């Protein structure tokens, strides 16, 4: 018996065995791609576009007024240059994996043209039409454009690249990619429950979606349509995607209006400014970073327990306690580190001292930082030792909170070194007392430093 013949018989026997059990679903009826496209277009209010290798549904919305001053936006760290075109992009997919079998069945794009924010969406009526859809998207993305996405660096764009490659096509070239998720996390996460785009809308943009489709429902609704189901459940998905794309523009507008101008951002919450300062500092823009931090620490900072604002199902504002995020200690320690980077060691020491005085969870770290400054900048080993001992006492007490083993090891090393140095200095003084020799200058002994790599970079930065 040939192999295929056996296989056929096995399948038949297997089917027979299964027939005794209830089947989950019947084979779906096949529907032509053109029929599917027409159904889809009618339901979502779009038009069917037919290209050489398939059809897709195009939905164009009326433009929206989302004004944005690109020059001002460009002043913020990590933002696109003023001259480049921006293309906001968001996809809806048949799964969460970026593997080769996940489809992007709806791609929404948005860009500024003629002073308005314009949006277009491309919908896939049938898997066979994917080539036409991908070509259409390609045409909408200029090669010099920056993409603007939300988590698009790790999800939407790699998935689209996989789709292009799967179809034997090159992915659209573009000049840059601004993923707003890390930006939002850094600036606003401290006052939000999570960093989902929907939460951003409620917490930052004052927008509340009604009857929005949940993310987990989306693949099922589309796959149901592919299997011959109705197109109506996709209407909400199209609206959802349309809102998502527009929110990308709104977040950009928020950043530009409320944070680009130093005078305007001076009224922003301290936590936002601390986040912004980090972004400035990463780009070496230390002066702007310092300005943000000085503003942040110049006024009362909301300290823990903090409150997170959210809205319940009826749009009523509710408050609930939240955790994490920057408080006064954290923002001040960022301030102190920045002062150190700027070589303003004594000011840094003063800030560390203030943090230590408050006795919060960062006080051990603050004493250690003071010890570093006393040892390496002031070359006052006795003062350094005193600071280190204070840190040691705190660390050994029960209530100081969580500290890593690394901190303990670092401190022990520091204590040993400082004790050795002070004792040696004392012995030398005694010897000189007997021999009447003048005291030599304190020797610079880099080899004895605790962690050479770190100390070295610390020393370079402090010059």
């Amino acid at each position, binding site marked *: *018996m040939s*192999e*295929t013949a*056996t*296989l*056929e*018989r*096995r*399948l038949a*026997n*297997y*089917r027979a*065995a299964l027939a005794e059990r209830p*089947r*989950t*679903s*019947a*084979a*779906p009826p*096949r*529907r*032509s*791609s*053109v029929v*599917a496209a027409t159904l889809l277009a009618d339901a979502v209010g779009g038009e069917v576009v037919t290209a050489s290798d398939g059809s897709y549904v195009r939905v164009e919305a009326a433009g929206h007024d989302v004004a944005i001053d690109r020059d001002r936006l460009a002043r913020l760290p990590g933002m696109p240059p003023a001259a480049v075109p921006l293309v906001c992009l968001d996809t809806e997919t*048949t*799964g*969460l*994996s*970026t*593997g*080769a*079998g996940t489809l992007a069945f709806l791609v929404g794009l948005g860009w500024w043209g003629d002073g308005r924010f314009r949006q277009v969406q491309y919908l896939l009526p*049938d*898997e*066979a*039409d994917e080539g036409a859809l991908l070509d259409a998207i390609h045409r909408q993305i200029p090669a010099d454009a920056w993409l603007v996405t939300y988590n698009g660096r790790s999800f939407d764009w*790699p998935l689209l*690249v*996989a789709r292009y*490659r*799967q179809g034997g096509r090159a992915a659209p070239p573009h000049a840059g990619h601004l993923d707003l998720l890390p930006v939002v996390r850094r600036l606003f996460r401290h006052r939000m429950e999570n960093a989902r785009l929907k939460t951003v809308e409620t917490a930052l943009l004052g927008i509340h979606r009604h009857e929005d489709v949940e993310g987990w429902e989306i*693949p*099922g609704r589309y*796959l149901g349509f*592919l*299997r011959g189901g109705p197109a109506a459940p996709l209407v909400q998905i199209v609206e959802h995607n349309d809102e998502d794309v527009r929110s990308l523009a709104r977040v950009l507008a928020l950043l530009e209006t409320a944070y680009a101008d130093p005078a305007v951002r001076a009224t922003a919450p301290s936590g936002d400014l601390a986040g912004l300062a980090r972004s400035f500092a990463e780009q070496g823009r230390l002066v702007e970073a310092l300005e943000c931090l000085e503003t942040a620490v110049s006024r009362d900072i909301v300290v823990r327990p903090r409150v997170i604002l959210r809205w319940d199902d009826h749009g009523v504002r509710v408050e609930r306690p939240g955790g994490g995020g920057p408080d006064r200690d954290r923002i001040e320690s960022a301030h102190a580190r920045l002062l150190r980077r700027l070589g303003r060691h004594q000011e840094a020491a003063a800030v560390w001292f203030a943090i230590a005085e408050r006795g919060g969870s960062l006080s051990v770290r603050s004493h250690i930082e003071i010890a570093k400054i006393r040892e390496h900048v002031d070359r006052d080993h006795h003062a350094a030792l005193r600071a280190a001992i204070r840190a040691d006492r705190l660390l050994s007490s029960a209530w100081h909170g969580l500290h890593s083993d690394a901190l303990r090891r670092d401190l022990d090393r520091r204590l040993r070194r400082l004790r050795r140095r002070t004792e040696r200095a004392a012995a030398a003084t005694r010897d000189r007392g007997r021999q009447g020799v003048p005291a030599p200058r304190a020797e610079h002994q880099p080899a004895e430093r605790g962690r050479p790599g770190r100390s070295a970079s610390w020393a370079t930065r402090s010059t």
Partner: protein
Amino acid sequence: MRTYAPASAEAVLERLLEEPSLARGVVHHERIPARAAVTAPLPAWLDERIVAGLAARGIGSLYSHQAEAIEAVHAGEDVVVVTPTASGKTLCYTLPVLQALADDPSSRALFLFPTKALGQDQVAEFGELAIASSLSISAATYDGDTPAPIRSAIRTAGQVVVTNPDMLHSAILPHHTKWFQLFEQVRVIVIDELHTYRGVYGSHVANVLRRLLRLCRHYGSDPIIVCASATIGNPAELAAQLTGRPARLIDQNGAPRGERHILLVDPPVLDPSTGARTSALTHAQRWALPFLRAGRQTIVFGRARVAVEILLTGLREALREHLGPRSRIRGYRGGYLPTERRSIERGLRDGEILGVVSTNALELGVDIGSLDVSILAGYPGSVAATWQQLGRAGRRLEPSVGILVANASPVDQYVIHHPEFLLQGSPEEARIDPDNLHILLAHLQCATFERPFDAGDVFGPGPVDDLLAFIAEEGHIRQAGDGRWYWSSENFPASEVSLRSAAPENVVIIDTSLDRPRVLGEVDLFSAQVLVHERAIYIHESVQYHVDRLEWGERKAYVHRVDIDHYTYANRAVTLKPLDVFAESAATGGRRIHGEVMVASLVTLFKKLKFGTDENVGWGPIDLPELELQTTAYWLTAESAAEGWRRDDLDVALLGAGRAIQAVAAVLLMVDPRDLGLVTQVRSPHQEAPTIYLYEAVPGGVGLSERLYGRHDELIAGALGLIAECSCDGGCPACTGARADPRVDAKALARRLLEALCGVNPKTRPPESTVLAESATG
């Protein structure tokens, strides 16, 4: 006998053979003469940098098999290299890969190893040769331990990617668009330890390779496949089944070897009425000690972790009493950290470590150099594994000694009494069935996820439209407007397919010994009944686990690590119904048949059996629902062979003969006897004749039964030999199984039936008397 002075392995062996209590157990002593190297010059086309790199490592010429392999690959042929341990097999694939990369640095190669440890060893070795050849080549392992940032670098720039079938299945193939550089440029695919890809796992791997080659075709590459295997009966056939294309067999070993002594040892029977023997562990220890005391590097293999611990303790204890080199004896097993393993391997290579007691963790190609003596406490389950373990001893110049000590199991006994099995060409075959319906359907889903199928596309045996339509009924794939089949589900199919199991539904085994519960593995429902019922001892990579809880509804078994001296064996009550006959023909005394069957299995109790002696030390009940298994089977009827027999006698004879056939079948097809279920029926309602069924304990089967059907005559002759040569009185666990009734001579009955099935005694006659004298059993 106490030997403290250093002596050669041969001298120690001579003295041991003069010791009557040891010499009595030696069933066979083979002297394999020393063999000189057969060499060939390095091929002229080999890149001069590689020639220099080889020279730097002291290699100026190749062994004949290496030269043959790389010439064949150079000429574009797929090859399968089959040569013993330590014969320089690795160069057979590293040289062609280095050459391909020297010719064109944009080339890629993919190495597949069955385990992570082997893969990491090979990367290190490959890297050294590349550096010696002053070729800058990025070779990296891509496995579960690879950190995320490095993964993306390997995807885009890794010239040699070393991975295992599981990673290929779940991480590389489904994400092929991110690996396009590899798929476009892959020139060579290396599959080492080919013989480990058998049974369910091999059938899965064959389908993973079908998916791999399908994607290579899509990306326009046509890689050469180089397989390397231990000695098995059908390496070329296995390679062809796994890769779907013919390969040239290279099995003429050109490596030199010193003289070798191979001893097959059967521990003497202590009590002929029960067949009780000295345990292989105790006996192996007696053989090992004199070699260790004489300063000979010795490795002793035990089958389970607990066996290793018993041996290790025993050896250290004995050496302490006699002031031997106690601290130079080490244990080695799976689960050791890589650094520990490296230090033991290094210790063995430089002679610092004298003796090692190991599980089969060392069986595969890890490099420990060559030792003087290798002793196997129990047959490791296949001829291939036996040679890999014996091959650990084998100096190039001095004589070495390999000793196989049998356990009291029928498989061990069969092998030990058939020296020709081990010594004259392996008769065992690695079987797979890549077209097992469940496995094929699972991989068709994965393949559809990876790329849609065109109508009429071939995957495996032929066009797969019918199968795709069948899957479409479940809704996971869909035929789109263009007639192609697309993945149409939000699930990620590769994560739902375990390469270790054929069934769609599995029990997940969760280890709770650690701080955080960890998934150990999966078993299909049918195996779960007997392997992970509550209070079972589940053995995974030679480590024992106690099953604390089996949540049948949730398909989860919770286990924790233990070290105890027994294992469990669950009794399956089985009813069997033939569904379809694929092949049938007349045989001596009856008929032989290959077909499909439905097996209903109920497991009601388990026994606790002691390691080594298989002594029953307790039992317990099992409360699990009945299961049905649709699978393939081989069966034989004995209508004329059993004519005129008394029903009771026939019952005993069928069961005894069946057990012996089961043992021989396990040997021939390299499987655990538990992989083949046995059912005997004095009068089968379906065959209307006395029938012995061997069914595959895997849904759909993996091709074992078809092959058993083909080797029917060998099975009967082998079973007859096993029973005839057993030194027990009237049946024992080593031949016909433990005796149910001490007054019945199961051995004689089974032997007569098998003789009739063999045609040894053409005049079939019913036995005169089967009741032994009461005095014989006391």
